């Protein structure tokens, strides 16, 4: 089954190149990719995910304001009924050159399931997606169906 995922670059961020590559990679990996492009607001991701019944949201932030733009994203998902939807974030997430593990702590703290640096191997991300979507389908959507 072709799973749907939503991707885009959050906030006021205009970096388009990585986004075009992510679309290409995930599409070739068999996903139905809804690409919102650059400068996407939290609600735009969520609208798209609800509309397309997506199984994961992948947020990019390249320009450094990720630490501000991503605040509250998880709560907003939950609020709007996307309970437990896999939330990935990747890119140059904070201002300046900082240790990746510190950056990871910040974004995990915000409720992102997976945090990736700019040099991530995208094949690894595809694997993570399959894995997390499987769990999501089993746990959350099963619960929903039962409810």
């Amino acid at each position, binding site marked *: 089954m072709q799973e749907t995922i939503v991707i885009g670059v959050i906030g006021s961020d205009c970096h388009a190149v990585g986004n075009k590559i992510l679309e290409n990679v995930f599409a070739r990996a068999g996903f139905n990719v809804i690409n919102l492009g650059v400068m996407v607001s939290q609600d735009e991701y969520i609208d798209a995910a609800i509309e397309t019944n997506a199984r994961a949201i992948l947020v990019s932030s390249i*320009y450094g*304001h990720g630490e501000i733009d991503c605040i509250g994203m998880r709560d907003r998902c939950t609020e709007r009924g996307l309970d437990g939807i896999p939330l990935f974030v990747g890119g140059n997430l904070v201002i300046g*050159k900082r240790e990746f593990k510190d950056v990871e702590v910040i974004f995990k703290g915000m409720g992102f399931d997976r945090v990736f640096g700019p040099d991530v191997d995208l094949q690894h991300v595809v694997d993570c997606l399959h894995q997390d979507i499987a769990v999501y389908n089993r746990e959350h959507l099963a619960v929903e169906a039962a409810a």
Partner: protein
Amino acid sequence: MELQNKKIELPDFLAEREQVLTTWPTGKDVKFADGVKYQESLPEHKRFAAVLKKADQEGKTLSQPRAGVALVDEHIALLQGLQTACDLLPSTIDAYTRLNRYDEAAKGIAKSREAGTSLLNGFPAVNHGLAECRRVVEAVDKPVQVRHGTPDARLLAEITLAGGFSAYEGGGISYNIPYAKKVSLERSIRDWQYCDRLVGLYEEHGIRINREPFGPLSGTLVPPFMSHAVAIIEGLLALEQGVRSITVGYGQVGNIVQDIAAIRSLRALADEYFRAAGFDDFELTTVFHQWMGGFPENEAMAFSVISWGGAIAGMSGATKVIVKTPHEARGIPTMEANRQGLNATRQILNMVQDQVFPASDALAFEVELIKREVRAVMSKVFELGEGDIAVGTVRAFEAGVLDVPFAPAACNAGKLLPVRDNHGAVRVFEAGQVPLPEDVLTLHRDLIAERARAEGREPSFQMVVDDIYAISKSTLIGRPAK
């Protein structure tokens, strides 16, 4: 709004101005006469246009970093730390301000105060306002330019120019297409006519402000002719509004012959088109941007990319070079990293300064090729605009005649696909609707085929992707792994 390439009438400008100055509270402090007086008070060595002109006359290449942080005192400390290693200073504006989201910039300022470190990717000049901008200008001893990426940069221009900044980067195309998503080109060109008109007004009052169209566009495999066409159009639009000091720009692609040919042809073409449009009293200079695409994360490797850019900038005869840092792949550089980029650049500039890149058939060929490509595109733009370059530009983007690779703007066709040839020069893989002459297209096709043969694969989007990653993975050309 009826867009045309025509100097904005003063009354119309002033009426618009009143409105612009109310778009954020700090606008109310700006008085034009006071701005002129303040600019007049700046000494020659802090006037951007004058310093550029001198360098041009002496055949020197000046260096300039990018730098900007959230808070004024920190920003001053940063520029003071950099000015001993460079010739020209920037103030890079944060991304919220670029999109006129001053309320978010305000939040960023507050959070940065709390965090004790800048959480913004630039200096939010509008929020800080006129007096603070002057504090910056007064705290340093080199000319300062506003560098940003703002489709509607009217208020920013009002505040920073009255604030003593003496150069203003950007343009209605180059600060829309790579930087925005849904801003119409009519809108951004019109708003930049305002900025240029403001600069023209300063000019009328004896204050020369330098204007620099943003050359690199998306920074990613942009064929020289396309960025040249944009730079020339923005130059023409600026001249019409009264701008007289113009620095046309170009982002390095990494092939020595193409890069040197690009700067040479850019200068020659700009001069030619500006004169053909009836102007002859402008000061034309050039800027070379060190590689603007993805950088290697390894800092030693990054130094080589920086250095190579510096070497080509110097040998091409560019008037200034915009300098990257060893932190490029990762994040906004520290002052120290920024100084390292500048020091590396200074060393290589000094070492190539007196060297002449030899005249050769290959170089002459590449110069001629770029010139023919630019002329083909420009004449179509004029044709579409029925003689009006502003109108022609909007229609050319609609038609895909002007087309910037990898740009986010909705009004950009995105059909032009570049790829490197077997020697690393950027060529046109898919032309989309860009009207290159048939023999030129054949040439590009042949050059790309040569590479494809060498790699034993067909040219494809994967080849383009490989090229996008190549420099960050330590090569120029994205060859398949053996």
